[in-house]
C-alpha cells in the first residue's frame, strides 16, 4: 500500500557566524549548511496498519510525512502509495489521503466549523449523501455536536483538534497521516483522540501513520514503531522488541517493618533508603526478582513490594542515546 525506497532529501540552510561583520559579509557571499533531512528511507506499510513514527526533534519525521503526502519533492528515491507517486500525481493522489498537522490548522478561523466542513465537501466533491453519512458519523464519534456551529476562534484546543481530525476524514480517505495529533491536549482529550483513531482504524480499515512525542500514544495505538534519527531508519518493528532490548533493569520498591541500617544486595543499587521504605534498581541481566527478594527477605520483614519496568520515555531516551541522535 505504501512503499518507500531509498528516499532522500537535503535542505540547504544559510549559515553565518555571529556579529555585525559576518552579517555584512553574508550580504555578498552566503555559505550554506547542507542538512540531510532524509538519508535513504525505505519501508513498507500494509493496508489497515497503524504505524507509530517516532524520533527526536529534527529527525526527519515531518519531512517524510510531507514527502508521503505530496507536499515535498524528495531529491532521490522512489515512493509508491496506492499506485501513485505522491509528488507527481499530486492532485489525483491527495483525494485518497487525510492529513492532520497538529501544530497547524486547516479550518477557517472566522467562520463556524460547519462552514469549513462544507467547504471541504466542495473541494473534495463529496456526494451529498456520502457527506451527510460521514459527517453524522464523525460528529457522533468525536462529539462535535456542541460546538460545530461555533467559529473556530472560540473553541478550545481539544475541541479544535477533534474538529481537525473530523475534517481530515470527511472525504473518506484510505490513509490518514497524523503529525502530532495530541500535542498540547489534556488527558481526557488525548484519550478521546486515541480511542477514536482505534475505532476508525478497525471500522474502515483505515491505514494510520502517526508521529508523536508522547509514548503513551504509541503504546495505546500501535505495535509497529518506526524509529527515525538523523534521516535514517534505526528500528522498524514492534514496541515490545524495543522494550525488550532496553529492558535492562527493574525498579523495586519495598516496604518493610522498621529497619535502620541499609541492606545491600548483589547486582542492585540502592536508589533511596528510609527506615520503612527502600527503592532498588535491579540489573536483571545478572539477577532476577526472586533472587533479590530472597536476599532481602532474609534480613527484612517485607510488608509490600512493587516491581516496575523502566518507563517507555526512558527506554526511548536510551535508544536515542545509543544511536547518538
Amino acid at each position, binding site marked *: 500500500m505504501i512503499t518507500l525506497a531509498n528516499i532522500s532529501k537535503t535542505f540547504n540552510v544559510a549559515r553565518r557566524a555571529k556579529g555585525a561583520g559576518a552579517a555584512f559579509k553574508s550580504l555578498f557571499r552566503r555559505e550554506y549548511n547542507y542538512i540531510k533531512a532524509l538519508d535513504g528511507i525505505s519501508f513498507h506499510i500494509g493496508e489497515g496498519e497503524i504505524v507509530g513514527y517516532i524520533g527526536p526533534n529534527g529527525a526527519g519525521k515531518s519531512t517524510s510525512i510531507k514527502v508521503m503526502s505530496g507536499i515535498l519533492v524528495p531529491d532521490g528515491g522512489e515512493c509508491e502509495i496506492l499506485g501513485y507517486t505522491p509528488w507527481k500525481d499530486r492532485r489525483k493522489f491527495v483525494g485518497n489521503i487525510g492529513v492532520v498537522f497538529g501544530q497547524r490548522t486547516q479550518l477557517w478561523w472566522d*467562520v463556524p466549523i460547519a462552514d469549513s466542513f462544507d467547504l471541504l465537501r466542495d473541494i473534495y466533491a463529496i456526494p451529498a449523501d456520502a457527506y451527510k453519512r460521514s459527517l453524522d458519523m464523525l460528529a457522533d464519534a468525536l462529539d462535535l455536536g456542541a460546538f460545530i456551529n461555533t467559529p473556530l476562534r472560540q473553541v478550545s484546543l481539544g475541541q479544535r483538534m477533534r474538529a481537525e481530525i473530523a475534517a481530515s476524514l470527511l472525504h473518506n480517505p484510505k490513509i490518514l497521516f497524523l503529525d502530532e495529533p495530541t500535542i498540547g491536549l489534556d488527558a481526557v482529550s488525548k484519550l478521546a483522540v486515541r480511542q477514536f483513531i482505534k475505532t476508525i482504524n478497525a471500522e474502515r480499515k483505515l491505514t494510520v501513520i502517526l508521529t508523536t512525542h508522547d509514548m503513551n500514544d504509541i503504546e495505546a495505538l500501535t505495535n509497529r514503531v518506526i524509529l527515525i534519527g538523523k534521516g535514517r531508519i534505526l528500528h522498524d518493528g514492534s514496541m515490545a522488541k524495543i522494550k525488550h532490548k532496553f529492558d535492562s533493569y527493574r525498579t523495586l520498591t519495598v516496604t518493610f517493618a522498621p529497619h535502620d541500617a541499609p541492606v545491600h544486595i548483589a547486582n542492585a543499587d540502592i536508589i533511596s533508603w528510609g527506615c520503612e521504605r527502600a527503592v532498588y534498581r535491579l540489573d536483571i541481566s545478572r539477577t532476577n526478582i526472586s533472587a533479590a527478594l530472597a536476599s532481602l527477605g532474609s534480613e527484612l520483614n517485607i510488608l509490600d513490594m512493587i516491581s516496575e519496568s523502566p518507563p517507555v520515555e526512558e527506554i526511548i531516551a536510551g535508544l536515542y542515546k545509543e544511536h547518538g541522535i
Partner: protein
Amino acid sequence: MKPYIALFRMRMIAGMQYRAAAWAGAATQFFWGLIFIMIYSAFYRSSAVEPPMRWNQLATYIWLQQMFLFIVMIWAQDNELLRHVTDGNVAYELCRPYDLFKIWCARLLAFRLSSSFLRFLPILIIAFLLPAQYKMSPPVSLGAAGLFLISLSLGLLIVTAVSMFIYILTIITLSPVGSRLIISVAADFLMGAVIPIPLMPASLQRVLDWFPFRYISDLPFRIYSGSIAGGDALFQMGVQVAWIIGLFMLGRLSFNKVMRRVVIQGG
C-alpha cells in the same frame, strides 16, 4: 470549477463578518476623499493656467478611488493568506485536490470584492449628497457606465494578477513586508493613486502607458467621467485584456517554478 467557487464564497463570508471594521473603513475613506478634494481645490483656485482635468471630473476621480479602494489598491492584500504562507499553513493547501494558483486567485478576488461591498455604498450615497463644490457626478452616459463596469472588472483582474507576485515572492522570502512595500509604493504612483494621471506631465503619461498599473483604475475612472470614450476606450480595454493574459501567464510560470522547491519548515 466547484471548489474555486466554494472557496470564493467562503472568503466572501469570512470577509463580510467584520461590520464594525467596514463602517470604520468607509468613514476613513470618506475623510481621505474630502482631504484630497480640499487640497486640489486649493491648487485649482490658485492656478493661472487651464488645468488638464475639469473640476467635477477630478472630484469624481477621487471619489471613485476612495469608493473602490479595495478593488484597485495593491497594498490591500489578504493578510490571512500571507500568514498562511509565512507560518507554513500552506502545507494543508498542498494536500488538497485543487490547483493552488487558481484557488489563490479565487481567494484574492473574493477578498477584494467582500472588502469593497461593505464600503462602497455609504461613500457613494454621501458623495452624491455633498455640496456642489465637492460632489461626485454621475457617469456621462449610460454607455460610459456600462464600459466603466466592464473596465473596472478587468482592472480587478489586473490587480489580482499583480498581487499574485507578492505572494510568490513571499513564498521565497518568507516575509511579505519587502515585496508588498516595494510593489505597492511603486504601483500607487504608477497607477495614479498619488496624483491622478491626467495631472501628470505628458511625457510621464506616455511612459505610464507602457505599464499595467494605469489600466487598473485610471482607465475605468476616466471612462466613467468621459475623458476617455469611444474607440479609444475600446482600444485601451483591449490593452487591459492583453495585460491580464500576459500577467496571469507569467504568474503561473513563476508560481509553478517556486512551488517545486517549496520547503515547509518545522513541526
